[in-house]
């Protein structure tokens, strides 16, 4: 910066513009380093230490934390539960959202009403609505089991039994995310050129299913892929319902990744160990994004 040789007025103007650009971007750059890059690097470094909050010093322990993770039954359980939860929530939520979007799109009058209703859970406080679901799921006084009982079915202890708790949480997760996926599908559907449907009809696509397979489904490709990635990532990040309703229980049946990290890091204050878990969590996100990126370029964009 010390000596900038300016021999032409154009270079001077460029240099001025560059300086203004730096000025405008500086706050963002500083904050980006402070709150994203530095902490991310720190979490990777901390993952190689035995740092615990409350104790002064720490030392580097190499891959000891990761070695411990491999043998940690809680962590393995947590990974498995997160995978199961994601495997249930993602496909069901996407399929339901697509079905609802198709039904709403075909409707003429009540479009806005139904869109509002299905979207309502997205705009509702999840912690609060989880509490309501806890009541709905209550084994004895809950409306769901009362309803089942009227058909002579003995409902399970949804959130209280280790066999059903993940599915109970999954139902809440699906209920909460369908509306979000639905509006994305609706936007995708509106973007399909009408002439393609006309062409399909003239070409002999008689039934709704023919037109869906020939036009709708392929044209929704980018939307579907995007919705899938977002849904998977959001499912992997499940935390609110677990923290509010089950605290990982009963008997670790609903331990999920973020909840385990939270417990280790902020309750037991084993920062080093929790950092190693966080690195695993980050790695999962990176792999997911990478997969999406690859498929996007290869398959669903037809340009």
């Amino acid at each position, binding site marked *: 910066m010390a000596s900038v040789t300016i021999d032409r007025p154009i270079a001077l103007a460029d240099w001025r*513009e*560059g300086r203004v*650009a*730096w000025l*405008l*971007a500086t*706050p*963002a750059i500083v*904050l*980006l380093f*402070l*709150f*994203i890059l*530095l*902490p*991310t690097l*720190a*979490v990777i470094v*901390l993952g190689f230490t035995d740092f615990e*909050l409350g104790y002064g010093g720490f030392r580097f322990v190499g891959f000891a934390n990761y070695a411990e993770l491999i043998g940690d039954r809680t962590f393995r359980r947590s990974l498995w539960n997160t995978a199961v939860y994601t495997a249930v929530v993602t496909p069901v939520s996407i399929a339901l959202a697509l079905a*609802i979007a198709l039904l709403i799109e075909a*409707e*003429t*009058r009540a479009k*806005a009403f*139904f869109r*509002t*209703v299905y*979207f*309502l859970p*997205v*705009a*509702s*406080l*999840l*912690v*609060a*609505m989880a*509490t*309501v679901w806890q*009541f709905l799921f*209550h084994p*004895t*006084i809950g409306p769901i089991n009362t*309803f089942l009982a*009227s058909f002579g079915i003995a409902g399970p202890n949804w959130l209280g039994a280790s066999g059903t708790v993940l599915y109970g949480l999954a139902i809440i997760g699906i209920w909460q995310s369908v509306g979000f996926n639905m509006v994305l599908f609706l936007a995708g559907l509106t973007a399909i050129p009408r002439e393609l449907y006309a062409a399909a009809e003239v070409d002999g696509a008689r039934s709704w299913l023919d037109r869906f397979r020939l036009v709708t489904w392929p044209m929704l490709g980018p939307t579907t892929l*995007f919705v899938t990635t977002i849904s998977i990532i959001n499912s992997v*990040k499940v935390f*609110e319902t677990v*923290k*509010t309703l089950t605290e990982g229980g009963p008997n670790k049946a609903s331990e999920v990744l*973020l909840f385990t*990290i*939270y417990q280790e890091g*902020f309750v037991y204050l084993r920062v080093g160990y929790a*950092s190693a878990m*966080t690195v695993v*969590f980050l790695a999962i*996100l990176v792999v997911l*994004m990478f997969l999406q990126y690859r498929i996007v370029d290869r398959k669903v964009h037809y340009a």
Partner: protein
Amino acid sequence: MTRLSLGRVLRLSLLSLGALIFLAPYLFMISTAGKAQSEIFSSSLALIPEQWSYVENFTKALSRVSMPTLLWNGVVVCALIFIVQVVVAIPCAYAMAKLKFRAARLMMVLVMLGLLVPIHATALPLYVAFDRLSVLNSYMALVAPFSISVFAIFLFLQFFRALPDDLIHAARLDGMSETGIVARVVVPNAWPAITAFAIFSVVAHWNDLFWPLVVVTNQEYATPPLGLLYFRAAEAGDDYGALMAATLIITLPLVAAFLIAQKRFVEGITMTGLKG
């Protein structure tokens, strides 16, 4: 115009059934918030309370945890986060989109990297640092990590790229400074993106439980989700009438905002969703 064909009847019934299921939690929340303890335990599916106990339940809900404080905290935190995010992101996005900025490519890489990293990943070091600086339990702790939104930069960047260069050139010929251009030309033209981002940001941070749970242990700074968690702990879980009254109070502001401006909401979420 509207013929009631068989297909349409089937479609409407399916949609209505689904809508009923989706609305059920709200119906039971409103209904249970007005029922007395004994009636709740009689486990009937009746939605209209036999005895109207709304007043008692709401009184209980309001007395255990200071609801006004919670809602106020929620508003303050969301407003601060949103304002800082926009003030930081817009100039940066403008510089990247419209100025000869040599670091623009590098910034783009940083932004893409930043999009990958959620608060859950950076929470541990930030918590340690905030603890060392003794700033836990403050608005500052609640807001600071979200002061930079790479998503906002990304969204505005895409929006600004679509603005015609001639608009900027005309403003320059009119003698405006670059900051003047941002304030008087770019921002007024970016309103659709700003409102969309506002909705996205407010919904995200009003609902966030993770970070407030990490940095706040003092009820005075509790946000709505955290406050409800405290309330549940204090209530030992079984007084569903009061619990539902509390959830009703806490859910209402955002739901009301959504119902009033539902078109904006859906557009905002769609726009931010698809750009992300």
